[in-house]
């Protein structure tokens, strides 16, 4: 990313969309909408002081909604460009309220609430599509109960939980436990407030609330308005602290997730959704299981799959190492159903095809290895560019021209072409660059001929 941001031959147009493409290979005219971000790109230094002071808290899409960000933000900490953006849907100033704190904070004077979308036109010889993919939403698979059972998460959510810069700082805290902890934090805040109120009264009457309340209930202080208020405040306080104590007791038993299940082919190799194999998911499950074991040596993982497709260089060896050194068990079988057992523990129901038995097994957390879905908006982009898609909505290519789209001069790489892992994407990016450079070279040749 850094190399891209710094390269003198690359003009980085982040937060922009292609609106129109005219012309042909060697001679395209591309219209681009540079979306207004309310921050001057050439002034913002990415220091982040604005986000620190912004009062509006929004759920953080980068952390899969597991964390929070502010209304002025950079998508993620190491993002390039580091230019911040104001989320116009949530910014107080842009929604007619009085604020502008970021503008006051920014010493580089980069905030511009009047910034609008800008339209750019580019003349280019070739176009490369590297639009990526979307993570399949497993909530449409009823038997896996994603979103119904808190401790069933997707691989990308789990990835955020594992990340040192993620919402749990790399601890495998279970979502159900985190929800309880959030509730405790909320109640503690309330309890502090109500405690303050009754403390004042205790001081005034020089008596502990509990002692007073017993007398009050026994019928003393019948027509005493002040004492009635005290009693009301005390009952309100109890209504907060009693469930709080209960939750705290519950939270004492919380530990990080140590028994993990990884379910392969969630939405992939499935006629209801995507019949293809997404290629990289077996490896990310193995990787996540190995890293979990590094974080917490007591972790055990079961990876449930029809085939474990460890097909890249060094992958099979990695898989075996995971089994030998990281407590991973590979279970051959497709998981039929996930239910919820005691203590919010997900229960996996599956047939062990080696033993020909239906089994149930309880875990602390279940991770769904979701399919590589064609990216949202790819149909519109393909239409704008005039390229064909395959039947699944990946950019159509052929095996002898693996990065050529159906339109000359337009190329594709990465998961916009079909599911693939990082090294293959990197290699394919070079392939697409090569094809585009060939077009540019031919154009230059023709120009030279024309001059001669």
């Amino acid at each position, binding site marked *: 990313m850094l190399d891209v941001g710094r390269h003198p031959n690359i003009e980085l147009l982040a937060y922009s969309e292609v609106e129109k493409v005219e012309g042909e290979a060697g001679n395209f005219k591309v219209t681009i909408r540079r979306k207004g971000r309310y921050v001057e790109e050439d002034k913002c*230094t990415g220091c982040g*002081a604005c986000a620190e002071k912004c009062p509006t808290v929004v759920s953080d899409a980068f952390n899969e909604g597991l964390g929070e960000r502010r209304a002025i933000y950079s998508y993620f900490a190491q993002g390039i460009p580091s230019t911040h953006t104001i989320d116009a849907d949530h910014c107080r100033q842009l929604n007619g309220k009085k604020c502008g704190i970021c503008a006051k904070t920014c010493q*580089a004077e980069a905030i511009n609430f009047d910034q609008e979308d800008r339209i750019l036109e580019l003349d280019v010889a070739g176009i490369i599509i590297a639009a990526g993919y979307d993570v399949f939403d497993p909530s449409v698979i009823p038997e896996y109960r994603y979103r119904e059972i808190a401790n069933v998460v997707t691989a990308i959510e789990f990835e955020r939980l594992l990340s040192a810069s993620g919402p749990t700082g790399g601890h495998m805290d279970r979502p159900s436990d985190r929800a309880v902890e959030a509730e405790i934090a909320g109640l503690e805040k309330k309890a502090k407030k109500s405690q303050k109120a009754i403390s004042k009264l205790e001081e005034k009457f020089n008596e502990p609330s509990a002692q007073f309340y017993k007398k009050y209930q026994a019928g003393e202080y019948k027509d005493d308005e002040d004492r009635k208020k005290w009693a009301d405040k005390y009952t309100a306080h109890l209504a907060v602290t009693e469930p709080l104590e209960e939750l705290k007791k519950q939270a004492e038993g919380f530990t990080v997730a140590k028994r993990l299940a990884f379910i392969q082919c969630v939405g992939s*190799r499935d006629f209801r959704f995507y019949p293809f*194999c997404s290629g990289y998911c077996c490896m990310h499950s193995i990787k996540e299981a190995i890293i979990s074991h590094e974080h917490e040596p007591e972790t055990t993982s079961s990876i449930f799959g029809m085939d474990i497709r460890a*097909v890249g260089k*060094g992958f099979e060896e990695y898989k075996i190492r995971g089994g030998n050194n990281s407590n991973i068990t590979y279970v051959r079988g497709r998981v039929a159903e996930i239910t919820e057992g005691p203590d919010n523990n997900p229960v996996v129901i599956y047939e062990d095809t080696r033993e020909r038995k239906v089994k149930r097994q309880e875990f602390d957390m279940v991770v769904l290895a979701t399919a590589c879905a064609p990216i949202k908006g790819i149909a519109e982009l393909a239409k704008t560019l005039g390229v064909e898609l395959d039947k699944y909505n990946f950019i159509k290519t052929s*095996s002898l021209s693996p990065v050529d789209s159906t339109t000359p001069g337009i190329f594709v790489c990465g998961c916009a072409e079909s599911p693939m892992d990082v090294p293959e994407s990197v290699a*394919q990016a070079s392939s697409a660059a090569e094809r585009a*450079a060939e077009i540019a070279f031919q154009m230059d040749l023709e120009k030279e001929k024309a001059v001669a």
Partner: protein
Amino acid sequence: MPEKKEDIRIGVFLCHCGSNIAGYLNMEELAEFSEKLPHVTFVQRNLYTCSEGGINEIKKGIKEQNLNRVVVASCTPRTHEPLFRSSCGEAGLNPYLFEMVNIRDQCSWVHMKEQEDGTNKAKDLVRMGVAKAALLEPQESIMSEVQVRALVIGGGIAGMTSALALANRGYEGGLVEREEALGGLLNNLNKLGPTMIEADELVEEKTRSVTGNSNITVFTNARVTEVQGFIGKYKVDIETESGVKKIDIGVIIVATGGRPFVPEGLYNYDGKRVVTQLEMEKLLKAGLDPAIKNVVMIQCVGSRNEERPYCSRICCQTAVKNAMLIRELNPDAKVSILYRDMQMYGVENEEMFRDSKAKGVRYINYDPANPPQVEPDKVRVYHALLGRDMDLPADLVVLSTPLVSQEDAEVISRLLRVPVDENGFFLEGHVKLKPLDFATDGIFLCGSAHFPANIREAVAQGLGAASRASIPLSKGSVVVEPIISVLADEDACRGCGLCVALCPYGALEIQKTEKGRKVHVIDVACKGCGVCAATCYQHALSINSFTDQQIEAQLEAFLD
């Protein structure tokens, strides 16, 4: 003339980084402290040293204050060192008389709650940076011409694709093939999955394009026997039938492919009734014997075992494709594939796999702990779903064996000074980020020489390697940062060669000189990693801008 010590004038620029640094450290105190450091003649605080205003302040300082060393204490050199360095250059100061101190990432950010300790740490860091800056020497970037010609080793589909891609961009080059014809493994194949193109047609078409292209010189029946030089300047000897040809080139692409493992002694392999998938291709090409009614294929023969732990990636695709072709030629033939995991990754492969099931190919999972038994007219396999042994009649047994590394991979590896992995495949520069490069600049990699690849993958990698190789070719020269190894004390060097063996980039060689065997640094190949200098018992090698004296001065300043 080395400058006198008293002439050293260091300017220190302290960046607030908005409030990222100034919010947590006492900048005023840090500035006062910095002013008192030896040789420091100018100290300035900036809101953002990296902003246009900040950069102008550095330039102004160099000109108006006659600064001859600049220290910026700010964020990370990863993002900002190139900017500050070039700014010094623009103001007329040698860019290597600049030193950067990171008082943000490992200082203000990690000591947000300890202003005093954090400020003290920043003082230590600045003092160390200033101590080193005083000893910095000017350096000049190293430029070396590139011969705008390439050599591709290996004339299979990957190599031919690379050679053609480079030729399409106007670059001349040689293509060396050890066999008498181009095409590599493709010459032995029948049809190519999943689209069932004829392999012969593809070879013919590609060969025609390659041989007909005036930019490509093809050497068949040829071997590379000698390689001298480094990126931009290689001298290569190619042994051909008509003698040794010497060529000068700038970059090299390794596309030497792989070869199918021959399963001698496994599953009663005899090349007749028990054959490999490669032999199956030949049988299919010749038109399958109609008497063959029962075929059993066994996957992972000679792979995913102790001796060869890797999965060869492409054998499952081959088996599925051939199974379908057998069903097409002999529609009442029964074909069973005995497998461990069907490695039909991706969109096209899985589709072919599904298709084959619809066309009647049968799949039976076997456990490597209880492998199938090949008997004279049948194969016995334990069927896990049924929980019992099954006998499958078999007129023909086909063994899916892995691609293994080429016999001459070791030779090429030695000639080019690039590594192979534990399976004998060439080892790329970085498993994730540099799949087509070697760690050594100027040498690139594609196809099954790297790891078994199907046609689509080999073509994509062939294009990609050409793209990587074209970068130095299109620039016509390589410019490298002068922060490299130098033989600082020639007399001390004994020519032992320990550093040569350890250099990951092939940047060192032993030369005979008047004073005996001495190490020579190929400066454009050196990355300045410092392994050689750290290893040298004689302290003969030193790294520019990281000399022993400079680092010692930093340590002393820290301990002050």
